[in-house]
């Protein structure tokens, strides 16, 4: 048992840090650190830079162009990226559809889709949820009927995060109504430029456009875009959900945010003293610091466990989202009444108009509101607790 990183791991961390120092563009860093509005461009530019270094996919094996890093190296990389102010890479391609393609796709599909994900040229989004089928995913109805060498897709997807930018969508579609609802589902990749696809924005409670509804009206999808076997999509989806949960602990990002929060607590004034001298605020900061440390160690324990992350990963999703939400809550409360003003324009880098309070107040309430999604999306925390109860505890 040794909770220190090895000298090799420390050297790796130094390399990553150096690379970030040298290559992370200032404007991107500034946007991230000031928690401004993200853009498609910044995500793609950064992915390109990483790709050129050979670090485009920290979680992929080398054979597909990934780094082949160990879980600990992946964590170090993520943490350093977050601390440096790098934008989060796009999960939908790199961590969601890609593992499915690698595991269940055919060689042709691997060759066709993985390079675009790695380079960031292809923007992916997820077509899982439908109106009326949220947590109860298997009840989905969006249909794909085989006609010759195509599927004809009709129906609607919703909660499609960043779908407005997407080139591709990976969808769960119903290819059969026989048997249990889970049995007739297939996993289909669809070109967002196909005729018959319509994307409509859903405005989040922070006023931002981040999620979408996607409508399919007789969309013709080549059968070669089917992953694995028809009607086996549920298996691939469950595989993917496992991958998603581990990532949702988000420790690197929360550590970066905690670091910023400590700075904010020193900068915000509470009358005659800095806020950090307010015992009540500081105690909540300390409590969260402790919980974050416990989460970090639990992530490391799970990732280095030779048995691999099982349904225990649900713990990480639950604690990761709870801690994230509390961090944003404290950031908001730290900036106090200044957080109340809503100045959408001030979320752009070139904004030079008036703002209420400090730069940290500008995104504070909006972020807090937005982050309520953490405990809802990606399998709500209620569903995660069901999973623990049923799969871990056998209840």
């Amino acid at each position, binding site marked *: 048992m040794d909770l220190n990183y090895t000298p090799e791991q420390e050297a790796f961390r130094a390399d990553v840090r150096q690379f970030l120092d040298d290559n992370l563009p200032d404007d991107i860093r500034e946007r991230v650190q000031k928690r401004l509005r993200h853009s498609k461009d910044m995500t793609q530019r950064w992915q390109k830079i990483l790709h050129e270094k050979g670090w485009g996919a920290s979680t992929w094996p080398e054979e597909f162009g990934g780094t082949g890093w160990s879980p600990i190296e992946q964590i170090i990389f993520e943490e350093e990226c977050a601390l440096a102010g790098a934008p989060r890479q796009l999960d939908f391609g790199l961590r969601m559809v890609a593992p499915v393609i690698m595991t269940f796709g055919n060689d042709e599909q691997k060759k066709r889709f993985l390079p675009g994900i790695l380079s960031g040229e292809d923007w992916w989004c997820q077509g899982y949820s439908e109106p009326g089928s949220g947590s109860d995913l298997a009840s989905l109805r969006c249909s794909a009927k085989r006609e010759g060498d195509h599927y004809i897709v009709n129906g609607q997807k919703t909660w499609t995060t960043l779908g407005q930018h997407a080139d591709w969508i990976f969808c769960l579609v119903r290819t059969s109504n026989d048997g249990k609802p889970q049995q007739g589902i297939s996993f289909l990749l669809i070109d967002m430029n196909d005729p018959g696809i319509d994307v409509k924005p859903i405005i989040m*409670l922070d006023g931002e456009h981040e999620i979408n509804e996607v409508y399919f009206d007789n969309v013709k999808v080549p059968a070669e875009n089917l992953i694995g076997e028809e009607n086996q999509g549920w298996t691939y989806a469950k595989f993917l959900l496992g991958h998603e949960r581990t990532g949702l602990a988000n420790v690197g990002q929360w550590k970066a945010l905690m670091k910023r929060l400590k700075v904010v607590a020193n900068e915000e004034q509470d009358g005659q003293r800095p806020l950090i001298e307010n015992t009540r605020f500081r105690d909540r900061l300390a409590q969260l610091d402790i919980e974050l440390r416990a989460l970090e160690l639990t992530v490391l324990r799970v990732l280095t466990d030779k048995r691999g992350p099982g349904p225990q990963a649900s713990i990480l999703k639950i604690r990761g989202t709870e801690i994230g939400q509390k961090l944003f809550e404290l950031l908001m409360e730290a900036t106090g009444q200044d957080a109340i003003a809503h100045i959408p324009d001030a979320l752009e880098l070139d904004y030079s108009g008036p703002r209420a309070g400090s730069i940290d107040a500008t995104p504070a309430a909006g972020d807090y509101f*937005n982050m309520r999604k953490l405990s809802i999306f990606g399998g709500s925390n209620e569903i995660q607790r069901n999973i623990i109860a049923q799969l871990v505890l056998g209840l």
Partner: protein
Amino acid sequence: MNFDLTDEQQMLNDSLRRFVTNEYSFEKRSTFIDAGKGSDPQTWSALADMGLLAFTFPEAFGGLDGNAVDTMVVMENFGRGLVVEPYLATVVLAGGLIRDVGNDAQKDEYLTAIASGERKMAFAHYEPGARYNLGQVQTTARKDGDHFMVSGQKTAVIHGGQADQLVVSARTSGNANDERGLSLFVVDASAKGVKINDYAAHDGYRIADISFSNVAVNADNLLGELDQAFPHIEKTIDLGIAAVCAEAVGAMEAMNEATLDYIKTRKQFGVPIGKFQVLQHRMADMFIQAEQSKSMAILAASTADSNEKAERRNALSMTKTLVGQGARYVAQEGVQLHGGMGVTDEMFAAHLHKRLTTINLLFGDADHHLAQVSDGLLAASA
């Protein structure tokens, strides 16, 4: 000991409930907010016509001598419908100060105009970096002949951008954190040297930062006695606390109704999600939080008019703590139980969430007021 509304209050409550239900739909409210004016002329004049803007003013100036319990009835209904008119700013805060410390000439000028709906006002008190500390005032008013020259920065002025006149607290003597040495002035929003940054707020209200740069204010516009404003500021903030706590109770009840309705109809796994025991217990806890908050909002309203400072401030801090915590719980769980729908701007629940969240940040958050109660325990034990 009784918790009944008077017949007049019951009538007020009923007519407001009708008004909010019939005249202030979620859709209408959105158009009012999008207009960006901080007040809808028709709504405001309807409120004036109902006598609402005068209710808490003295009879001599067109009012009904109403008290904080009347304000509670109003604000609870406003909370249910998320009414974003500048009632709190104009009537409760600025109007309350003029009522409490203004001279007859001032009352005659301002209260009458407020009552008729002609004039809107706001209270500019908090300053950058002061956080929730009421005595932390660095804005100065320097006597210059028959004028005061006001200079300084005010922040988080509720509906400050929509006010015709501002009641401004300023230091006329003493140091930055002294309770003595504060005075109040009525300042024209259009006066030379007044600069207003008017922002939309996340909750549909408007909120402003205001700077004063050598603004000349006629000595007649001094409100109350020189240097003696602090206790009145405290009391006005307490009236504000009682008002927003009542508003929070209305919003919590509305959130509970919206959520209950949602989980009774929304189906997952073939049954309404309200059949899941975890959501049932969560809903029960939301209900408990709202009931407890309601009890405390009544305490606040019943105490806010009192001049027994220690007892009043303790009751108000107790209330703001519990209501702040309850509002947070109900706001968070209400959205959570709405699932994905809860985080979209098209749902009423999302807007209730935002208003409940910002209420916790107004006039001191739950932590701030818990500390007040806690430090009061220490003082009591000494």
